[in-house]
């Protein structure tokens, strides 16, 4: 698959060089890339889901390694893996309903991930049971049973069913790919339209004559506020600049152009102004499983000030930003330090750096801040509003437990 290979390499380069900005753009591109990988993947007759999964995993591992801080990439990889598993499972259950079989099959441990057409009543019951069963030791030894199972079923299945089975298998194989690609298309669609879905909820949260504070720029926040403006709510917005990128200037210009009363303040004035603010609305870079937020730098300060003044701190995040990982030391591990030239001119300080007095200078320019879940009042996602303590439940909707570690174990070869 040379063209997919080149696509993958291109995307990897862009990620490594940080050319892609924003989690929505990254997520969309990642999803489209994985869609091409899937559509170009040649699937074997059996164990198609397995093959798909390992192919996606191979690519996904590289993508995540290229930019570990861009959590949206990992989210999309895991979403696609979950989609594959789900589609496979739904096809399997549909096939179970359709066929009445009596073939023997005793490998119930990998029915969950298998696309076996050989199904007996026992297997049906096993399938039903395994979908509801928590992961057992058998399901955890996921890779080895596959190769062990293949001779099993070929031995257990009779030749009488061979032909019909093979026909079913190939049609099922095509169907699996088709279904998966359809679902990935839906995912891409969701990512593109997350703004509208979040913006629909704006009217419920913004009343007349409110004063809203935000920092930096986020397209979600822009759409949110404009949606409220469309519904004839008049309110004022304070936009903090968001040094050192100064995206707040952009947002303020946009908002003023759309007719909202906007005031630009410096980041240092946040504490001074927040006593007159009714609500803080911000976007996020990523939302972690514990409800914590990886946000542009400066938002932890805003969240602390909001807590002090009992101002609700509302985070807008599309569902592609929800990451199933729990953060550990996120200020350091999930952060990126950017160039010091954004803070200081190189020329000004090169002289004093050369001086022999022994003074040393170290410039710190982090990109992200971690906001702990206790400072967040509400998450507004495209599925509605949620408490930070609820976010871990949403993970079960979008991700499978098997996919949390995308990195493949070196022992496997498939």
């Amino acid at each position, binding site marked *: 698959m040379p063209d997919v290979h080149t696509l993958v390499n291109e995307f990897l380069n862009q990620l490594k060089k940080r050319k892609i900005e924003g989690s929505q753009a990254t997520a969309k591109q990642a999803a489209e890339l994985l869609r091409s990988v899937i559509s170009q993947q040649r699937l074997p007759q059996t164990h198609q889901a397995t093959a798909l999964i390992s192919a996606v995993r191979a690519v996904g591992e590289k993508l995540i390694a290229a930019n570990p801080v861009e959590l949206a990439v990992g989210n999309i990889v895991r979403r696609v893996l979950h989609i594959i598993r789900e589609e496979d499972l739904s096809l399997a259950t549909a096939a179970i309903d359709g066929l009445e079989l009596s073939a023997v099959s005793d490998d119930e441990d990998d029915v969950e991930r298998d696309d076996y057409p050989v199904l007996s009543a026992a297997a049906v019951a096993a399938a039903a049971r395994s979908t509801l069963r928590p992961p057992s030791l058998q399901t955890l030894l996921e890779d080895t049973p596959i190769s062990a199972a293949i001779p099993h079923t070929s031995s257990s299945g009779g030749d009488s069913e061979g032909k019909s089975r093979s026909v079913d298998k190939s049609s099922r194989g095509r169907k699996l790919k088709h279904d998966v690609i359809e679902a990935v298309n839906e995912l891409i669609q969701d990512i593109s339209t997350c703004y509208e879905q979040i913006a629909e909820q704006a009217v419920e949260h913004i009343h007349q004559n409110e004063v809203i504070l935000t920092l930096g720029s986020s397209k979600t926040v822009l759409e949110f506020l404009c949606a409220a403006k469309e519904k004839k709510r008049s309110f004022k917005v304070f936009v903090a*600049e*968001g*040094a*050192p990128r*100064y995206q707040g*200037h*952009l947002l*303020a*210009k946009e*908002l*003023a*152009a759309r*007719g*909202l*009363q*906007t*005031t*630009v*303040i*410096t*980041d*240092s*004035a*946040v*504490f*001074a*102004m927040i*006593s*007159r603010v009714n609500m803080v609305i911000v976007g996020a870079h990523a939302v972690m499983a514990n409800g914590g937020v990886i946000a542009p*730098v*400066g938002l*932890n*300060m805003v969240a*602390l*000030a909001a807590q*002090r003044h009992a101002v609700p701190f509302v985070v807008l995040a599309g569902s592609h930003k929800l990451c199933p990982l729990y953060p550990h030391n996120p*200020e350091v591990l999930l*952060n990126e330090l950017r160039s*010091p030239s*954004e*803070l*200081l*001119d190189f020329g*000004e*300080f090169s002289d*004093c*750096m050369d*001086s022999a*007095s*022994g*003074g*040393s*200078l*170290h*410039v*710190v*320019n*982090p990109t992200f*801040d*971690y906001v702990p879940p206790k400072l967040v009042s509400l998450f507004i996602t495209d599925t509605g509003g949620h408490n930070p303590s609820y976010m871990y439940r949403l993970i079960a909707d979008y991700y499978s437990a098997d996919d949390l570690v995308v990195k493949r174990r070196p022992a496997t070869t498939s």
Partner: protein
Amino acid sequence: MAQIHIFLHAFILFLSLFFVVTNEKKHETVTEVCPNTPSVSPPLKSKTTKAERRALQEAQRAAKAASKANGNSAVAESGKAALAKSKNQSSLKKDGPPVTSEVTIDKKSGNRPPEKERKKDAPPQRMQFDDQNRVGKAKRRALVNQTEAKNRVELFRHLPQYDHGSQLPNLESKLFQLDSVHPAVFKVGLRYMAGDISGVNARCTEMLRALQEAIIDYSTPPEKVLIRELTAKISSYISFINECRPLSISMGNAIRFVKRRIAKLPLSHTDVEAKTALCSDIDRFINEKIIIADKVIVGHASTKVRDGDVLLTYGLSCVVEMILLSAHDVGKKFRVVVVDSRPKLESQALLNRLIAKGLSCTYTHINAVSYIMHEVTKVFLGASAVLSNGTVLSRVGTACIAMVAHAFSVPVLICCEAFKFHERVLLDSICCNEIGDPGALATVPGRMDINYLENWTNEENLQLLNLMYDVTPSDYVSVIVTDHGMIPPTSVPVIVREYGQEHYLI
């Protein structure tokens, strides 16, 4: 003949009025400073009230008679002016800007003295810029023409928001026309407006030096009393300086000191003696309250710096710089984190000086404070003023730093001299603040690509707000290091009360 009689009558009354007024002022002083002697004050109060009212009526009658006689309008004016000056002094007790113009006080003073007596414990009204009448009157008397900023922020209508580009050349051109303003004072005003001097200590020192020069060059006109005239002149200088750049709260303390020293001058002093006394007083104030106080503070605070410390500082405070340098000279091993913020980016100057002296520094901007705070062991901050409810007024952003430090359980030490303590109380940063040049926000020096706000004045919905100060609540402050020692923020009103009298009885 009748005219001369009336004139003499008026003059005598005017003199007696003056003495009554100064007596009343002294009583005010006494009652304010020693409120634990209430038994003494009420009868005195009522006596002066009545006396003052009678004197006022006499003065008004005399003024009418004098003007009818077509005589000395100067007498009437000076009679009124004396009253106005005393009122002005009591209104200036609390804060700098005397733009509460004498014209309005004149009109009100006839009916108001009894209420003024009763209300004197409450701080008088500052100039509120949303009051159209007073703004109009102040503008008519103003020496500096300020043009209002085009996109004003509604929340701050009570503060002056001026267009900052225009007055400097305007004022420079008036240099030779404004003979009512002493050249030294004019120079200081220009430097304030240009932003050359920043930081309360520097501003205070410069202003006091300029006043010193003005006092030295002052000479009493004939038939006038030094105290009144000098006070009037100083008030006009202060209002000029205030128009150039609004005075900060602690500068009001210094001005109050000067005026009290003038008022305390014995009448028997000649001009020369009075002037030398005043100049030496001002010298002593600067020396004791600023220079020596700084040394004491440095001594106290250096004991708090230990080997292996990581100290965070924000903005450009001369006291904190002195502390860091002296601790380094003593040989302690520590690191400094310098936090900076827009639009002034003042900390870069501090950073330069620290590195030149050999300290190892980390530089970052205020948004990254949460990132860097887990490495920091202590936070040293300067202050512009400390208020009686323990809150600290200082450069905007200090409150954010103190809040994040508090969240990470890092102690916050505020270093400021005792002359910055003030009786005012403030709850938030909106009611009393200074608004700087909004155009400074639109451009980022050194970053040509950040030009989204180039034409911000054309957008009618867009305002830029450049606050200069903010108020840090007292629970974020661990200790305040002053020349009286290291005190908790709850002890600030005690210092104001106890050492206030010493301050004025030097």
